[in-house]
């Protein structure tokens, strides 16, 4: 009996971890994994649109890891919250941005907010997997 309960708990933990990781790797994927198809697709579309439009508006995606500029570090973490699309955009050569572009600051805002919203989506996926949230 207790062995069954332990196996069930381990399965639930694996499911929760998988949902969190998938939600970070690609926006909305955690919810799709949990069977929340509509919610996952809406979140995926909205966040990818925010991030994609930000990149199209010449946002900078450069990685800052030093503590000499804490705000730049936080900004990088915010953008990285979107997961694989961030890596993909950098690999495609969009990391530098275009500081002279009139849309540059808007682009930065779009990409950072996209990443921050995806952090909320990851937390929601974790709650959903744990059964804290119903729908």
């Amino acid at each position, binding site marked *: 009996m207790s062995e069954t309960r332990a196996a069930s708990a381990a399965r639930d933990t694996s499911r929760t971890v998988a949902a969190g990781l998938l939600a970070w790797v690609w926006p909305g994927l955690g919810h799709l994994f949990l069977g929340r198809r509509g919610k996952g697709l*809406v*979140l995926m579309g*909205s966040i990818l649109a925010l991030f994609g439009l930000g990149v199209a508006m010449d946002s900078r995606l450069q990685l800052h890891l030093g503590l000499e500029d804490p705000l730049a570090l936080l900004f990088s973490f915010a953008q990285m919250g979107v997961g694989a699309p961030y890596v993909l955009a950098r690999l495609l050569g969009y990391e530098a941005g275009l500081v002279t572009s009139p*849309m540059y600051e*808007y682009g930065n805002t*779009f990409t950072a*907010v996209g990443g921050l919203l995806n952090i909320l989506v990851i937390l929601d996926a974790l709650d959903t997997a744990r059964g804290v949230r*119903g729908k």
Partner: protein
Amino acid sequence: MHSHLVTLLVFSALVSTVFATLLRDTTGERVRFGLLAFAAFVLSTLVIGWLTNPFPS
């Protein structure tokens, strides 16, 4: 997309959609909350923009 107003509208719509999807559970509640958040984003931006207009950039 070089229009500030269109940028504001697109940003507000997308962020409101995410908030509504995460924070409400039924379709009706999500639509109502999303519209309210969208209006709050747009109106507050316009009001703050109007209030800060006299200040030099």
